[in-house]
């Protein structure tokens, strides 16, 4: 076991699965460092591997037949991968920015998500689409969105939001072995986060929340990068004598409803933290779940911390104001702690 980054953990997951199963292929822009078949014999550039280096070294090990450089045409790439998945391959498409998924909605919503259902289980689509989400790097409105709620809305898709290197590796392995299309959303601020990650292959199951901290006073449900923001808030709150039970659902589809409800039944207070925009978002979805199924456990109104309903600003001070901060999370927790509905 060694200390590895989120980026290295993802690279290991891809490498392990490609070694284990010859049906696993990769497709994406620049994932093979720009090599074409003509240049494939040239010595590899181990520093490359996509814009963030996640696929570094894979084209050198697995060759151009399994690490496919695609043109900058996301709709064609995802269409090809959906078809490949139907034939029995297990494609992992690297879409770079999740913001670009918009041009592939037919391939994802109408084809990938529907084929198994419409063919009565005779077809399956074991496809993984990896994409970066989130703000925090001044990448402006078209490269910073949290679009997990859009995909969570579509039946037939699984949606994964790893918040740590350990989870990133185990969830990506589970995603590749899954027979349904999986939208795998990596937060771009997390790539250099490090922790202990086993060298071996392992799975992290979908639909099982990670309880990041145990606490008796308030449940905080947070997604993706917001898990770290909420953890920072919980450390401040601990000094004030407030025990936070921090829950990272890890997947929004399927969602670990029982895990969330069990915690709320214990604490009676809840704050949901999501970097997405507030309307029709996962935060509102979880709030509705709690309001309808745990209402009688609640001692205070449900707290919800999200970004505002605006595009992500480019200006650094405005982007900072846009993102939910540890202070905002801590304030929301203090509010639900001081409110006594019963």
């Amino acid at each position, binding site marked *: *076991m060694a*200390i590895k980054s989120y980026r290295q953990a993802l690279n290991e997951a891809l490498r392990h699965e490609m070694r284990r199963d010859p049906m696993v292929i990769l497709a994406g822009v620049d994932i093979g460092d720009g090599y074409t078949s003509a240049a494939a014999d040239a010595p590899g550039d181990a520093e490359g591997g996509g814009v963030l280096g996640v696929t570094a070294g894979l084209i050198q090990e697995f060759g151009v037949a399994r690490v496919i450089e695609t043109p900058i045409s996301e709709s064609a790439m995802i269409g090809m991968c959906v078809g490949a998945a139907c034939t029995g391959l297990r494609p992992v498409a690297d879409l770079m920015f999740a913001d670009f998924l918009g041009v592939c909605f037919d391939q994802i919503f109408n084809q990938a998500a529907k084929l198994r259902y419409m063919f009565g289980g005779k077809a399956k689509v074991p496809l993984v689409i990896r994409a970066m989400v989130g703000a925090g790097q001044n990448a402006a409105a078209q490269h910073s969105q949290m679009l997990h709620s859009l995909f969570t809305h579509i039946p037939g898709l699984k949606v994964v939001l790893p918040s740590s290197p*350990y989870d990133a590796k*185990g969830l990506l392995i589970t995603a590749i072995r899954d027979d349904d299309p999986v939208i795998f959303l990596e937060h771009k601020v997390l790539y250099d986060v490090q922790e*202990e990650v*086993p*060298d*071996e*292959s*392992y*799975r*992290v*199951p979908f639909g*099982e929340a990670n*309880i990041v901290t*145990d606490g008796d006073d308030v449940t905080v449900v947070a997604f993706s990068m917001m898990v770290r923001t909420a953890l920072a808030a919980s450390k401040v709150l601990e000094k004030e004598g407030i025990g936070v039970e921090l829950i990272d659902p890890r997947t929004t589809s399927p969602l670990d409803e029982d895990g969330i409800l069990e915690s709320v039944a214990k604490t009676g207070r809840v704050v949901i933290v999501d970097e997405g925009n507030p309307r029709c978002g996962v935060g509102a979805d979880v709030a509705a779940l709690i309001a309808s199924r745990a209402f009688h456990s609640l001692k205070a109104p449900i707290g919800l911390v999200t970004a505002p309903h605006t595009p992500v600003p480019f200006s650094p001070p405005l982007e900072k104001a846009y993102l939910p901060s540890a202070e905002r999370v801590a304030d929301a927790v203090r509010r639900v702690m001081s409110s006594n509905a019963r």
Partner: protein
Amino acid sequence: MPGKGNIHPVVVPKWGMAMERGLLSAWHVDEGAPLSVGDELVDIETEKIANSVEATHSGILRRRIGTVGEAYPCGALIGVIAEATVAEEEITAFVAEHAATSRPVSVEASGPTPQMIDVNGHSLRYLTQGAGGVPVLLIHGLAGDLNNWLFVQPALSGRRVCYAVDLPGHGGSSKDLSGIHNLVDVGDLLLAFLDRLALDRVHLVAHSMGAAVALDLARRRGHRLASLTLLSPAGLGVSSNSEFIAGLMAAGNRREMAAVLKMLLADEVQVSRDLVNDMLKYKRLDGAEAALRKFCEFLSQENRSTAQALAGVATPVQVIWGAQDRILRPLTAAELPSNVRLTVLESTGHMPHLEKSSRVVEAIENWGPSG
């Protein structure tokens, strides 16, 4: 941090590689109280487990520096032991000097790192601590690993080299059990491991299922063993709690795993979130569940009586058992041959090396054959 002449520091220990800080949860001794070696001084909690720090020297607890409820980095000075004859000014100077020079211990900079070794096609992970003397080999039980010895191994390695190994299918060792069909094969692999490390004779300390492997070695290859210490042993005529084994195999999530692991310890509160998560993480490694199933099978083939298990064993044997062991019912002295030394620990479950580590170390250090 070294002591200075007759002034001895009490520091936050480092239990295992991942430990960076410890929370001081209780002092057991007042400032000014006289101390003997081995007295429990202070309780330190990590995310994984809580344990006591004991006095390493006799004397008087001259300073209680650590505050209850505060977390300190490993190596931080939390107390000072010295004889009454040492002047107050010297103690004050010692504390001040430490405050000026102390640096938090970083994760990478300290703590031994486990190594991998290839033995008969199996990749085994092991951790070495200490040097010299007749070596000690520590063998864990079902679903355990070398980290089970994190309190015991550092203490035992003060006077001799001490190895802890992950059995095949466990911990960081390879999960493929090809060629291993029973506990005798596991024992043979351990002999090959000893050969690879050029260890002719060792003191064997083994827990639970590991003890069944150790007993098999004592019957077949007793000349390789200087002594045998068995903790909560399987293979000694007591059958394992089948509810625990079935539960361990079936547990697929935190709640189920926590319920199962509570059976291991006398004080259920000690089953922390991290203990549960670590077990789940192990089970989710590719091949780990299949390996566990095979080991359960091996274990179920063990049906010797106590007398049969010890028949022909010439190696000196001692047994340490928790009075509240719910996995393997403790034997009484009357049920064991008179030449087997038995220590039964009160308020202790199936994991004496985690629950009462100092008593386990003491039993090994103070017993003629292994001391």
